[in-house]
């Protein structure tokens, strides 16, 4: 069997070095971040209902934002968290933020600092209370049913929670008007079992794309009233509050990377098909 002198373009493409693919991926991520294209994003009903609920609450309503993720899920949940917090501030609702994942608090602190640039009047203790982290997931949730200030005697910054004006009017889980939980795992199950169901509080879940399928059954059972799923959910929310930020610009990157992979796979398959045809013809000619 004699070999073709030089591998054809098709053959070379099929053996494409992975580093070229890596370079293309980097470019597909970076360029849309530099030059946002604003590809249209359709808002899904499960995101819309979260927005509608927060929008319809009267000013000064009590909201709980449970933060149950850590830096590993930051790319997806951090933009989501910021978008929801921004919406809450704009609607002048009161916000309490507990964290049940040990490495979560720093992310919340960072988001608060960033938001304070835009909303310098947003004050700790009056408009929001950042409770920080407490160990013991389910036990913490149960205990929050009777008192926030006893479960978290000090907030993240070390101040006593008991004397804060907001905590004086909002110290029990039952006083919650609406809750949003940000989940990278199954801590949300505990919130539903031990808090939102017993106290009949409406809740929405912001989740990473990987755990989203775990939460859709809750939506079907009406145990949660909305889902923000992954980066796409965050982008939809940013669009709803009319503040396109990290997630919206990231969606362009997402689309471009997906399109890139899609096109490369299709071309590879066509080429492989053509090559197989050529080989078959060659074999026939030789025979």
């Amino acid at each position, binding site marked *: 069997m004699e070999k073709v002198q030089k591998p054809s373009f098709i053959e070379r493409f099929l053996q494409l070095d992975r580093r070229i693919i890596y370079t293309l991926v980097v470019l597909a991520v970076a360029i849309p971040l530099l030059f946002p294209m604003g590809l249209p994003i359709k808002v899904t009903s499960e995101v819309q209902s979260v927005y509608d609920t927060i929008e319809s609450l009267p000013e000064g309503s009590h909201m709980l934002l449970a933060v149950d993720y850590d830096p590993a899920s930051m790319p997806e949940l951090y933009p989501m968290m910021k978008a929801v917090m921004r919406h809450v501030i704009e609607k002048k609702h009161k916000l309490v933020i507990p964290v049940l994942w040990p490495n979560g608090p720093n992310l919340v602190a960072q988001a608060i600092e960033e938001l304070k640039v835009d909303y310098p009047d947003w004050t700790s203790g009056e408009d929001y209370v950042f409770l920080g982290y407490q160990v013991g997931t389910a036990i913490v949730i149960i205990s929050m049913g009777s008192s926030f200030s006893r479960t978290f005697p000090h907030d993240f910054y070390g101040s006593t929670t008991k004397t804060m004006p907001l905590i004086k009017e909002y110290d029990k889980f039952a006083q919650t008007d609406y809750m949003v939980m940000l989940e990278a795992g199954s801590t949300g199950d505990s919130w539903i079992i031990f808090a939102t169901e017993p106290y009949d509080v409406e809740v929405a879940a912001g989740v990473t794309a990987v755990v989203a399928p775990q939460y859709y059954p809750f939506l079907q059972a009406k145990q949660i009233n909305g889902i923000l799923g992954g980066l796409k959910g965050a982008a939809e929310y940013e669009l709803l509050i009319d503040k396109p930020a990290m997630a919206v610009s990231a969606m362009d990157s*997402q689309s471009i990377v997906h399109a890139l992979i899609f096109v490369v796979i299709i071309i590879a398959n066509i080429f492989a098909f053509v090559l197989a045809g050529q080989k078959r013809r060659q074999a026939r000619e030789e025979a």
Partner: protein
Amino acid sequence: MTHLAIILLQNDLAPWQEVMSTFLTEGGMPVLGTWIAAGLTLCMLSFVYKDNPFFRFGEHLYLGISAAYVMTIYWFNFLKPKFVYPLIPVLDPHYGTPEGTSLNLWIIVPGILGVFILMRLIPGQGWFSRITFAFYIGGFTGVALPRIFAGFLLPQFFATMEAIPWRVNSIDSAVLLLNSLILFIGALSVLVYFFFSMEHRGFIGRVSRVGIYMLMIAFGASFGYTIMARVSLLIGRMQFLMFDWIGEEIVARIASLFHGG
């Protein structure tokens, strides 16, 4: 991500700790941190190109730090509260209060089993650890066995036994019928594929072929589903490098060069 908890003490910080805290969280240290983080991000990313000394440096640093991190957690969450305190309750800061640990000498038994593991360090005495393995694995298997039924086998088993909506009078109901047939036949054919004690020929062979197709569709779908989540992670790192490290303004200026404005 490790979900082992870190106990953040809620005590008021001593004055010198406050000074240290200010030093580390304000001013230059976070900037230095951002630069170090960016450098390490590039080190770790470089390995997708090929092995190189930068990656090797990052890898070895990461190994050392993470091993130490986990070991301190072992101490604070495992050995201290579960072994040291029950043995010497006075050491517990809550000693004397209702939350304090009470003396429990039974804890010596797992202590001895633990020492058996350390006997491996003595040549010729490694077999002691077999007793520990037997205790650990035997006990754990006993724990797992009923829970495989309760949490795993029976729920899936009953979920498969759903009524087939065989009355078709519209397109929607036809889709429902199709779905339920796919679930039913799909799950069974995959089970047939896993038959070990008979040859996959004839009828069984054909059904197991269907099983293979079901598996392939499932794998393809999961693969495609995960791409988005993984790309999000890279976008997150790129945003860190471009906006936190290089800086939003500089990036915007670079971008404007290409806009021609």
